[in-house]
């Protein structure tokens, strides 16, 4: 079935297309929609109602997850702004950025053999978190001024940083696995 509650996630939650998102409004809108469409509201309903409820609730969740996460939100805003995005074919060629990423990778690789890997992971995470903040601000400025292409490049960097953070997370997960 074609789902078209409203095409735009921002409109769905009645929020302005703005990177500075009011998380509280987002959350409360999400909850009101879930309260209405969650399949639990339809346990005595017909099979068709249940099926549609699952689809609607899934759609609301997808919209919510997209807007909640800053990187996904940035990418989605570019999409709303009319850019065609293709994660697989976009690369970044900013040498300073690439250098820094390589250094961080090396730091991470080395910490496998050191005394207190957790502490080093925390240190790297802190550094990356700060970078995320910087890029987010930059993205916001560029987007507002209508420089979508430049904003897209920043959003790529945000994606890189996020992926590295995820990898650190997985690495820490493995470290703990060994301890349990």
């Amino acid at each position, binding site marked *: *079935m*074609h*789902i*078209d*509650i*409203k095409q735009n996630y921002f409109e*769905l*939650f*009645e929020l302005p297309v703005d990177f500075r998102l009011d998380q509280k409004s987002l*959350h*409360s*809108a999400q*909850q*009101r*929609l*879930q*309260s*209405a*469409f*969650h*399949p*639990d*509201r*339809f*346990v*005595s*309903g*017909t*099979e*068709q*109602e249940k099926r*549609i*409820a*699952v*689809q*609607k*609730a*899934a*759609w609301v*969740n*997808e919209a*919510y*997850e997209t807007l909640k996460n800053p990187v996904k939100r940035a990418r989605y805003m570019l999409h709303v702004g009319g850019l065609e995005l293709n994660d697989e074919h976009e690369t970044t060629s900013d040498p300073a950025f690439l250098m820094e990423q390589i250094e961080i990778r090396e730091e991470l690789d080395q910490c496998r053999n050191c005394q207190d890997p957790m502490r080093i992971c925390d240190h790297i995470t802190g550094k990356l978190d700060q970078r995320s903040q910087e890029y987010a601000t930059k993205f916001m400025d560029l987007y507002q001024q209508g420089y979508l292409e430049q904003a897209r490049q920043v959003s790529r960097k945000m994606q890189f940083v996020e992926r590295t953070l995820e990898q650190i997370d*997985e690495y*820490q*997960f493995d470290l*703990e696995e060994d*301890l*349990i």
Partner: protein
Amino acid sequence: MALLQISEPGQTTAPHQRNYAAGIDLGTTNSLVAINRSGQVETLPDSEGHHLLPSVVHYGETQILVGYPAQRLQAEDPLNTLSSVKRIMGRGIDDLKTLKNMLPYEFDGNTDSHVPRIITRQKSVSAIEVSAEILKVLAQRAEQTMGEKLSGVVITVPAYFDDAQRQATRDAARLADLKVYRLLSEPTAAAVAYGLDQQSDGIIAVYDLGGGTFDISILHLNKGVFEVLATGGNSSLGGDDMDHAIGEWIIEQAGIGKIDHFLLRHILIAARKAKEELTNSASTTIQLKYKELDLNLKLDRELFNALIKDLVKKTLMSCRRALRDAKIKTSEITNVVMVGGSTRVPLVLEQVGTFFDCEPLTELDPDRVVAIGAALQADVLAGNKPDQELLLLDVLPLSLCIETMGGLSEKIISRNSPIPVARAQEFTTFKDGQTAMAVHVVQGERELVSDCRSLAHFELRGIPPMTAGAARIKVTYQVDADGLMSVMAEELSSGVRADITIKPSYGLTDTEIESMLRDSMSNAKQDIDARMLAEQQVEARRVIEALDSALAKDGQELLLENELNQIKRARDSLQQSIHSANADALKRGIKKVESASEEFVARRMNASVKKVLSGKKIDEVDV
């Protein structure tokens, strides 16, 4: 139709009729059933006053025993007395190797099914059938107590249960002829039992230490909505390990050299007794007479604590990890709920309190708390509490991935995404005229497919033949509120829907379920046909009623005349066939009504979004 329930959540058409809905805790070691008995939700005892039903089933020549009578036969007839089958729910033959020590049964090697079957004297059975026997006894207990048939049940499952394990649980309920309103995660049920859903906001840790398993879950609660932020634990750690620790100490103290099975059993029983006594007293005496052995040992709590210190520490390590997983600091935890009999151990209580820096909740019986929570939710879903807005949102416990080149897994939906959830992916063909393709779906966090749990192989057929790379096949993966997955596929340029054949890796096929149903009934064919027909008649009535009320409300507003007529035609023809004795014809009639009204239902839902968001409370929305 659908939106009727928005104004009156879960309400059926007869508003004053009370529905009896039970909560069932289907546990590894013990199971329980709870229900709302005139305003009080409580677990139900058997005729001898036992609330716990040991999750043990004994297969005799012709007879099947469940619970205590089965447990009593465990020592003398171990191969036909099945316990802890929850460990193999939704598991495959390969998994048995790792579980062998815990499940000393004979498995049937000569079977085409993906589901392991245990050989008993009576027949070979799957864990699903064994669980169904347990569910039947619990449902019967509830129905006898209430003097009414159950309208539906909520069954609890561990938060980390994967798709196959959840599906197996649902299949067991189907075999037991129970309507499942919802599978609810155990920690969420425990939190509901404590009424934590009534508070406005909080982060709740549920510490569940049972006989043989340990689970920790971190829940986020916000205005009646629960989200599971993270889960963790250890599937082979529990109160039994404490008994073993004491047992080893006894063996060491008594200088016992050779131990046979019977002696070990006696030692473990004595150890367990000592453990339980140390809950309320500072010291206890272990007395044990066996053959020439005559033991009299004193064990105080301090020593006991030293024996189990490492076990408790292990659980706290899991807690630490779950917190990090949830990105939550210890100081943010607002409540700690204790579940499972082993949380009565004072050291556990003390250490957990210290770790979370929070007084754990212990007022409810830790053995019963999950069943009570499930019953509360069952009551809401049955429509007995229309004023209550309790909505439990779960998350996907493990990431859903597909296999890509080289046996690597690619994440489609990440773990901890709120469910229901759907995600689409586009594929293309790589050969000219290609009309079929296969997708292997797995669940897990690891990079290699071989390290994840295989869920199913999907075969898409009927893709229109085109040149290589021209077809655009959109595959949509959907997970429902129970955590169960389904897959849809469509070729975008032609709009053709691909046929999907599912080969579940560890589940039962529909044919297998049907044959099990047949086995479980005396007058096989007739009974099944009658049940199918009755089910379809109920569904047909429900469809017509819902449609009529929806049409009366806003058929005029949302439909063009020819659309309205088309729906009415389908409706009338279903109405006419309702008394026919043909289940298949009814099924087709329902399908016709559904497809005729699909667009109407969707329009109504869309129309109500605005109302939901315009700030009105749900029950004020006029639909």
